């Protein structure tokens, strides 16, 4: 991680939704960075803003209502938020691509799989003929799809869920992007199929040195796939650390609660600790720390002032007044 400039640097990103009932601050001052070939996990519960963060990077915020109101997304030194819509289109699917949760919803049922993998290559690299189809086959091979040439003729409904998700992965890698954003890519898959898929993504990363952002609610996926993790709660990153540090030495009470509330496979646990209460409504958030109402270590200051990101050690920070105090 000695590169002068990281592949992706996100600074103080803010994405708000303007609704009749008020402003929902879905992403509220998120910063992180990512090197080439690195995998970052963004973990959080529903409503924590993890998906909105990843959609903001590609400027795909749901309309109307959603708006990126501030911050910078520096990709290879270019601020994506300053680009025109047509310049932005050159990035999507070519330099940055995305794998979504539901493969059935991200594939078009009336086109063959081959056509759909070919589309970004035609669009971005203006390939055609044999060169195009060689590249398509190569993309399917990267995701370990057996007999790729025959599979190109198939329609999505002729494939199983695991195979469809591999095709979606194939579309994502077809233009050899520098960054893949995977949003819960395996939630719809069975356990053994999920294991296959994650292994294929790892192989792919080794072969192409692509950087990945894994958005997930599951610490297990993060533990298996990621180098570093950012934990999100109510629109903010509350803790960033290397995977090992996060599991061994979590700092933020929310992370500590999460790590302790996950049942274990390797030993019998008599009773799980649980975080009581519910995540807050993002509308009309109270002042102070957003986790304070559920926190076991809360004290006066937490209700008054919002804690900034505090450094616990090198490459490990948490937004909590207890850290470093």
């Amino acid at each position, binding site marked *: 991680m000695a590169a002068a400039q990281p592949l992706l640097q996100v600074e103080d990103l803010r994405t708000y939704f303007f609704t009749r009932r008020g402003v929902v601050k879905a992403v509220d001052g998120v910063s992180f960075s990512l090197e080439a070939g690195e995998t970052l996990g963004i973990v959080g519960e529903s409503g924590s803003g993890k998906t909105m963060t990843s959609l903001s990077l590609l400027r795909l915020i749901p309309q109307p209502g959603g708006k990126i109101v501030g911050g910078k997304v520096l990709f290879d030194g270019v601020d994506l938020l300053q680009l025109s819509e047509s310049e932005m289109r050159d990035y999507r699917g070519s330099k940055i691509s995305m794998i979504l949760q539901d493969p059935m919803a991200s594939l078009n049922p009336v086109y063959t799989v081959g056509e759909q993998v070919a589309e970004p290559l035609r669009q971005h690299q203006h390939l055609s003929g044999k060169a195009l189809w060689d590249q398509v086959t190569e993309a399917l091979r990267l995701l370990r799809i057996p007999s790729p040439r025959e599979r190109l003729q198939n329609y999505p409904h002729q494939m199983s869920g695991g*195979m469809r998700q591999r095709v979606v992965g194939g579309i994502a890698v077809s233009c050899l992007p520098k960054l893949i954003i995977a949003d819960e890519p395996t939630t719809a898959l069975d*356990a*053994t199929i999920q294991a296959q898929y994650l292994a294929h993504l790892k192989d792919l990363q080794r072969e192409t040195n692509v950087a990945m952002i894994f958005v997930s609610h599951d*610490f297990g996926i993060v533990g298996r796939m990621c180098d570093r993790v950012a934990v999100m709660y109510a629109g903010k990153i509350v803790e960033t650390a290397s995977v090992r540090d996060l*599991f061994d030495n979590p700092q933020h009470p929310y992370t500590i609660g999460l790590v302790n*509330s996950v*049942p274990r*496979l390797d030993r019998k646990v008599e009773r*799980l600790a649980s975080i009581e209460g519910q995540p807050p409504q993002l509308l009309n958030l109270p002042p102070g720390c957003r986790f304070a109402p559920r926190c076991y270590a809360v004290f006066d200051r937490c209700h008054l002032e919002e804690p900034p990101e505090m450094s616990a050690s090198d490459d490990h920070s948490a937004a909590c007044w207890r850290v470093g105090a």
Partner: protein
Amino acid sequence: MLEGWRVTETPILEARNLKKHYPVTHGLVMQKTVAWVRAVDGVSFAIRPGETLSLVGESGAGKTTVAKAVLLLEELSGGELLFDGKDVGHFGRAELKDYRSNVQAVFQDPWGSMNPRMRVKSIIAEPLVVNTTMTKQEITSKVLELMAQVGLRPDQAELYPHEFSGGQRQRIAVARALALNPRLVVLDEPVSALDVSIRAQIMNLLKDIQTQYGLSYLMIAHNLATVRYMSHAVAIMYLGEVVEYADGDDLDDLFANPRHPYTRALMSAALPTHPDDRTDEVVLSGEMPSPLNPPAGCHFHPRCPAAMDICRKVAPRVIQVGDSHTVSCHLYD
């Protein structure tokens, strides 16, 4: 599995050689059965009072079909279901009504299992209105008692389901399932739709209720860590059959030392609870075959890393590998 059964007390529910085959028909008028889908093909288990049996497997393993059969939502193609030692197949009307009160369910999706136009108090009261002769006042006080039990406030009784989060809805579902003082509750993936920080709350609630009432659970789940936390007995299913089973003291053995190659693959596919757990990954090739034409011999052999000649021809029998740990695999013959 029955060979390994320690006869201590009558199980609350016993399944003997359960089968559910669905016909595949051709033709609109003269329907002709051309094949059978063997969704469940000879499954046996027993659930002891106050304990949890979990059925684990991937989609298509037949675990939901078993749950439906237990809830009498599917007619069996073969086998017997014994409740308290009595054959459910021979139950008369009154006994069936009793059975349905005694066996309740909590489903995976707390959004799909409740009528959005009913207030919470009516949702929880419905089984009482239908099945008992309680007066209005009695029902109201019972509903409030149930709500307190699952951690809901009395003032929430007037709200509609959409006003609750997923975890709270699952609490409502639990309260509704408890209304008739059942003896067995079928839990179909009770926490997999919930957020991580809420899962532990609901799992602890289910465990507390179990201890308090001596309830039995039949749980359907795919997350092995959840299963380990909740269960007293575990049956691993593959393509309509139980391939490995353990209970009681042998349960730790199942998790520490799984015998069936499929169970091993499942364990290694389970996501680590710590990055250091990245153990030897057994990544299975291929996918579960269709139960329409299951492979000959052992159903698992086409994906099995340890397949031998015999596996392709002969179906394995149930082999005892511990006091209450059995496996169906030729490796242990």
